[in-house]
């Protein structure tokens, strides 16, 4: 093998989805028998890049070399043929099948189909690398960590020499993580090359030989783990601060509006989603929420909106009309909305929670007002006026107010969603990822809308992905990490690197106490 010791080499890889550039001119190399960590924020293009190596996506530009030879990877099968295996963040397993059935799925072998033999060879692999796994166990009876083991076995069974793990530790407990790492080290000793995607810095330091840092789809640098520090990596990951010139007024006459006290929340599977959350949102200020995707942002907002049952804790609402303090925990989502607490959530699939794609803008306005009509008939006049106001004021590009929302572009959908929630003159406005996928102008329009609400004395809670925006828009920034608050910092004085570090690890457990008074 005359290939300068590289198992895998990427040259000038680019990939775009519509107008969004996911990867731009990425160069990356992987040596034999090493563990390479790929580090980057959300949306930095890590997963897209790995998907191109494993054949899920096809690169728009660039070359891929395996063992020094240029290859075309057009399908997952091509990737297997080049002995590349990827363990996805979202498991790709058939629930109804046993571990072995999943492992042998899709393999075309010469020899006769024999499940017992396959189970035997699976056992051999598990013993070799020290996994714990019953090959006959059905997936739907398995824990998350067992499912991950099946994913890894699947790749090993096919004889992969290059393994890609997409955020393998995101779903694991620390003990399970340690177990996984010891397996990975055994594989490395066995000569396998491993790429591990993560944004947990301490894990990068613990497991990897080298680190490649991606930022906004671009490859920033690849460094030896031994010769770098967590701080240096964070700087590379978040980049220099970019000045955006978003207007930010001093909060005026801010009063406590929403107090969240000791909120805990547990998922159906028993995983802790929110861990002792304490903070106060004030009227007339924008409270930013930063964190890696899935750190509890969604659950927190839903808890306030009454959509997520709480394990313990309380959410106190200071009603500006009568000065009374009410506990939102005892209220239905409808009652909470009537109090003026509004949630506009823009999830990954863009159509938002609260818009119906096949209905037009007017009908979507009516989703909030249909109860107000008299008798059995709905009032269509007011929603129509409102729809037209939003179209004019927010410059929504649409043929008419009667166009189905799904035909609008993402940005315009978001304007309709945010516009409708603002139109109900809320007292608390929660906007999650309202600028996701929007161009600069639309984004600024949304920022201005939020600022306007702040001026009107609304308590605005803004969940964002872009740290630069959070730092310029928000008065205070609450940083979540793994369902816990790492800290609440002042938006005017905080540093980007500081946020980056807070997002990736929790700052001492004692912080929460002072948070409520911050």
């Amino acid at each position, binding site marked *: 093998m005359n290939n300068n010791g590289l198992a895998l080499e990427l040259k000038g890889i680019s990939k775009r989805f519509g107008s969004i550039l996911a990867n731009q001119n990425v160069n990356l190399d992987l040596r034999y028998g090493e563990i390479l960590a790929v580090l980057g924020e959300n949306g930095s293009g890590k997963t897209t890049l790995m998907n191109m190596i494993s054949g899920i996506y096809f690169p728009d530009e660039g070359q891929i070399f395996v063992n020094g030879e240029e290859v075309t990877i057009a399908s997952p099968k091509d990737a297997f043929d080049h002995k590349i295996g990827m363990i996805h963040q979202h498991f*790709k*397993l*058939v629930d109804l099948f046993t571990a072995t059935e999943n492992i*042998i*799925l899709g393999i075309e072998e010469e020899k006769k189909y024999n499940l017992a033999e396959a189970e035997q060879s699976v056992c051999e692999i598990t013993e070799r690398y020290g996994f714990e796994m019953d090959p006959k166990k059905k997936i739907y009876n398995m824990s998350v960590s067992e499912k991950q083991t099946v994913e890894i076995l699947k790749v090993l069974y096919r004889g992969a020499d290059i393994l890609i793990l997409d955020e393998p530790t995101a779903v694991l407990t620390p003990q399970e993580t340690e177990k996984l790492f010891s397996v990975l080290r055994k594989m490395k000793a066995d000569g396998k090359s491993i790429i591990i995607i993560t944004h947990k810095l301490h894990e990068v330091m613990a497991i990897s030989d080298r680190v490649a840092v991606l930022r906004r789809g671009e490859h920033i640098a690849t460094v030896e783990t031994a010769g770098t520090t967590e701080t240096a990596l964070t700087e590379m990951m978040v980049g220099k601060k970019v000045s955006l010139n978003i207007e930010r007024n001093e909060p005026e006459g801010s009063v406590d509006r929403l107090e969240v006290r000791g909120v805990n929340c547990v998922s159906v599977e028993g995983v802790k989603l929110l861990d002792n959350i304490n903070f106060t949102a004030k009227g007339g200020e924008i409270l930013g929420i930063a964190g890696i995707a899935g750190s509890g942002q969604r659950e927190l907002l839903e808890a306030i909106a009454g959509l997520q049952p709480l394990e313990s804790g309380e959410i106190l609402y200071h009603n500006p009309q009568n000065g009374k303090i009410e506990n939102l925990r005892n209220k239905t989502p409808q009652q909470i909305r009537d109090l003026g607490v509004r949630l506009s959530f823009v999830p990954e699939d863009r159509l938002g929670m609260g818009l119906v794609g096949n209905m037009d803008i007017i009908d979507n306005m009516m989703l909030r007002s249909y109860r107000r009509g008299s008798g059995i008939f709905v009032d269509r006049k007011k929603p129509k006026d409102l729809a037209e106001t939003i179209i004019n004021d927010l410059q929504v590009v649409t043929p008419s107010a009667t166009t189905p929302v799904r035909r609008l572009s993402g940005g315009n959908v978001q304007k309709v969603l945010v516009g409708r929630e603002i139109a109900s003159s809320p007292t608390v406005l929660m906007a999650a990822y309202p600028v996701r996928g929007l161009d600069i102008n639309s984004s600024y329009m949304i920022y201005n809308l939020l600022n306007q609400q702040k001026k009107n004395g609304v308590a605005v809670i803004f969940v964002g992905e872009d740290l630069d925006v959070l730092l310029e828009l928000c008065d205070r920034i609450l940083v979540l990490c793994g369902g816990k608050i790492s800290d609440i910092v002042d938006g005017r004085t905080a540093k980007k690197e500081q946020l980056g570090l807070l997002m990736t690890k929790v700052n001492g457990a004692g912080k929460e106490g002072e948070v409520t008074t911050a």
Partner: protein
Amino acid sequence: MHTLTLIATFLNLAILQGTPLLYGATGEILTEKSGNLNLGIPGIMYIGAISGVIGTFFYENSPIFVPAIGVVIALISCLIGSLLASLIYCFLTITLRANQNVTGLALTTFGVGFGNFFGGSLIKVTKSSVPYIALSETGDAFAWHLHFEDLPFADSGFGRAIEWLWTILFSYGFMVYLAIALAILASYFLNRTRRGLHLRAVGENPATADAAGINVTRYKYFATCAGGMIAGLGGLFFIMDYSGGIWSNDGFGDRGWLAIAIVIFAIWRPSLAIPASYLFGALYILYNWLHMPMQMIPIMQMLPFVVTILALVFTSVRKKRENQPPASLGLSYFREER
């Protein structure tokens, strides 16, 4: 002895009645295992039947008629007809990703109309005074089997003692046994072969199958077409064997829907579809055997569906994962979803 003969005759008729259902159910199970809910099966069974009738009609009216060749021609034209009908469904739901329910229902409406239109045309061609087409010679060939009376030991004491058993087991045309063989084969294919494993994976979780390097589109096309062809044979059996080669419009009735009900009743297992089909066949003809007023007959004909609902309730309450429909049943698969 008299009771035994009576039971034997009843079972014999139940099996004859259940056989078209078994074809339909086996075909639909194979199809649904790929995640395609083909509600066009009743229509495809009509199309399969009329295609076989058309092919045989022209051959039977030619000067050189050999019954065995008539059978082969009927089978081939039936398979071609049902294959084309299945391809319509495949193209719409797999390639164009149209809604499966709508496509299936449309195909059923189309298939019934298609059958009646060409059936009606053929009746016109024959200038017959009765509203049906008779292909009795081919029909006889389809239903051919050894009659008990022709057996050497028929008249012996032993012969009389086992006549009832012969009636239940051996007094059918070849297509009854073919139906059982196909169901067992389908069961073997799904549970004991690599391709069967792949097919089930496609129906359970196409994204996973795709990531594992399985060609989802190809498997869906294969299963839906093979399933449609098997179901089409059920229509052909009904005309050629059960009805003795006589096509009359709407003669096949609602049996296609019964076949789909059996799929649920047999919890998506071809091997279970065999007894289930015969049970449904028995329930379907039960009213003939119980002396009851005319107006009760539709209620009796409802029995198979009542049984299906009970089976659905039972499996839903027990919630055993293995007894649920394929997880992606009714959904189209599109890879580059982001």
